[in-house]
């Protein structure tokens, strides 16, 4: 059954207004900076917070409904909405099997069948034979697996994941992502994943919803949203350069008047004065000494100053005027003067640069 959320919450000056839906076995990732309203959204779906208006339902079953004529609020323990957070919160006084059996036992299943089911769940999350272990003697990753098995063993109608991989090391997180994806699909549980991580969104999500200041600023398939972001937060998260400004035209062609007085040439049909945005990945930018000979015609060229430097995944990542990030391959480091304040010549292939009208709703 499909999870449908369409709610509005007000907390002082903060207002949240989100609509999203997750089909069975589908993962919807909610991305957003701190304070965007991600946790508030989870609290509303989980039944810990009542919205001022809106509904939460799974299929035809209404969990929350607040409006002029209705006020439904199903208690958390009767909602059948599972939660897996950053902290596994495995019950310390129960062994792994009893932890997983907790949901079925609370639902009235007898001890023996509940334990048998728990063992099967532990097997499904890759913890075969560890049922008798106390949480204390399990690793962080194993505890998170127990927490996942425990959440799914309760057969929730929907599952909420709140940064569930944030405290795990890279490899453990990767393994657990696989387990989560497999189990969510196998059980057909509609799932909402709140995360800061692009990796989570790309590997797990079927849809991405980007939240900022309580409103949805962008949504779509993860790969599309993250490779062609329309919102500065998404761009920063995906590591893509996004410049917003007015189109200006002179004799030689069009350019985008970006912040910091930066003028980036671009090929566009947009009229002068239009608010537009340009995006391109840092790897597409080529750096050269200022005044170098103009290359082939299929590149846009501008000059900028070096603002700061940091180690990239291979070479250097250089921040230049207008917050434009440039990845400089190791071979080039040392051949071009990259001291802070130095003037450099940047160029981007026309094909790597996307130019379009800026979305109207922007903060």
């Amino acid at each position, binding site marked *: 059954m499909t999870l449908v959320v369409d709610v509005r919450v007000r907390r002082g000056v903060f207002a949240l207004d989100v609509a999203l839906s997750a089909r069975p076995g589908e993962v919807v990732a909610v991305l957003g900076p701190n304070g965007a309203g991600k946790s508030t959204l989870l609290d509303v779906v989980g039944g810990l917070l009542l919205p001022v208006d809106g509904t939460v339902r799974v299929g035809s079953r209404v969990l929350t409904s607040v409006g002029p004529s209705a006020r439904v609020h199903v208690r958390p*323990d009767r909602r059948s909405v599972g939660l897996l957070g950053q902290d596994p*919160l495995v*019950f310390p*006084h129960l062994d792994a099997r009893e932890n997983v059996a907790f949901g079925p036992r609370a639902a009235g299943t007898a001890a023996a069948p509940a334990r048998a089911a728990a063992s099967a769940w532990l097997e499904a999350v890759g913890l075969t034979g560890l049922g008798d272990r106390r949480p204390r003697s399990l690793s962080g990753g194993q505890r998170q697996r127990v927490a996942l098995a425990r959440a799914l063993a309760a057969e929730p109608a929907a599952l909420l994941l709140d940064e569930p991989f944030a405290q795990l090391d890279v490899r453990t997180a990767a393994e657990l992502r696989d387990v989560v994806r497999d189990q969510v699909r196998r059980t057909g549980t509609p799932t909402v994943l709140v995360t800061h991580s692009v990796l989570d969104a790309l590997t797990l999500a079927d849809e991405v919803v980007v939240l900022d200041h309580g409103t949805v600023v962008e949504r779509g398939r993860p790969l599309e949203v993250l490779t062609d972001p329309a919102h500065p937060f998404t761009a920063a998260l995906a590591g893509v350069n996004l410049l917003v400004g007015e189109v200006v035209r002179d004799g030689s062609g069009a350019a985008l008047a970006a912040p910091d007085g930066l003028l980036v040439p671009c090929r566009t049909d947009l009229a002068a004065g239009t608010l537009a945005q340009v995006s391109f990945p840092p790897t597409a930018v080529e750096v050269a000494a200022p005044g170098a000979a103009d290359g082939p015609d299929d590149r846009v060229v501008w000059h900028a100053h070096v603002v700061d430097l940091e180690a990239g995944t291979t070479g250097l990542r250089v921040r230049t005027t207008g917050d434009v990030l440039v990845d400089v391959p190791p071979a080039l480091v040392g051949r071009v003067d990259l001291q802070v304040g130095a003037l450099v010549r940047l160029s981007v292939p026309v094909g790597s640069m996307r130019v379009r009208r800026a979305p109207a709703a922007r903060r």
Partner: protein
Amino acid sequence: MTEPRDRHGVPRLLWAPAGLALGLLVMPIVALLVRADWQSLPSDVTSAAAVSALTLSLVTSTIATGVCLVLGVPLAVVMARSRGWTSDVLRALVTLPLVLPPTVGGIALLFLLGRRGLIGHSLDLWFGIRLPFTTTAVVIAQAFVAMPFLVLGVEGALRTAGTRYETVAATLGAGRWTVLRRITLPLVLPGLVSGTVLCFARALGEFGATALFAGNAPGVTRTMPLAIYSAFNGAGVSQGTAVALSLLLVAAAAAVLLAARAWRPGGAT
């Protein structure tokens, strides 16, 4: 001593007062052991009066502890989960008997449950129940002075445990009662055990409130502390008996503490 002396970074200046404090706590017991007449000890502690007092003490303290558990744990849960001024007021009310001299407690109980008391008058008039100077009065007096130890101990443990596990249990479909039974109480079991032990020990040693509210009738309200007081004041027996009975009470209290320590979940500290 193979470990460096300043391993824990304790200033040396603390050693002297710490030693004095320990001495103040331990030396009286040592003096008791030294003063004891070990010849007559066996006959003193097995005398009918001693056995009767000890039995009465153990029985009443156990019942009082049971009462404290049944009533005090719910109070602790309510306190721990209430917020703002409610919890402040509740905690102040619960702490009051703790800071009150037990004799004041005894007088207060008389004014509440005595034959002319606030409730005692009606109890006598309507049901013919007269509480003062009965074994029931002993239990009530003990519960009055011992309950705060249990409530405050359990409440503290509940606050430390927090509500995060309870929230998770609720998302797994557990109702409030199931959460309390299977998550909340097991999580605070160590606090519950230590609170119960303190509560029992306090009930066992209760004297002032009992003396005023329940009296000193042999076999009915003469618990160990009252028997010791009577013996010490020379009511028919020698001071040696008082010392012997005191040792018996010390032994009983020590046994309870040791048993609780061995039973504590999680094992050795």
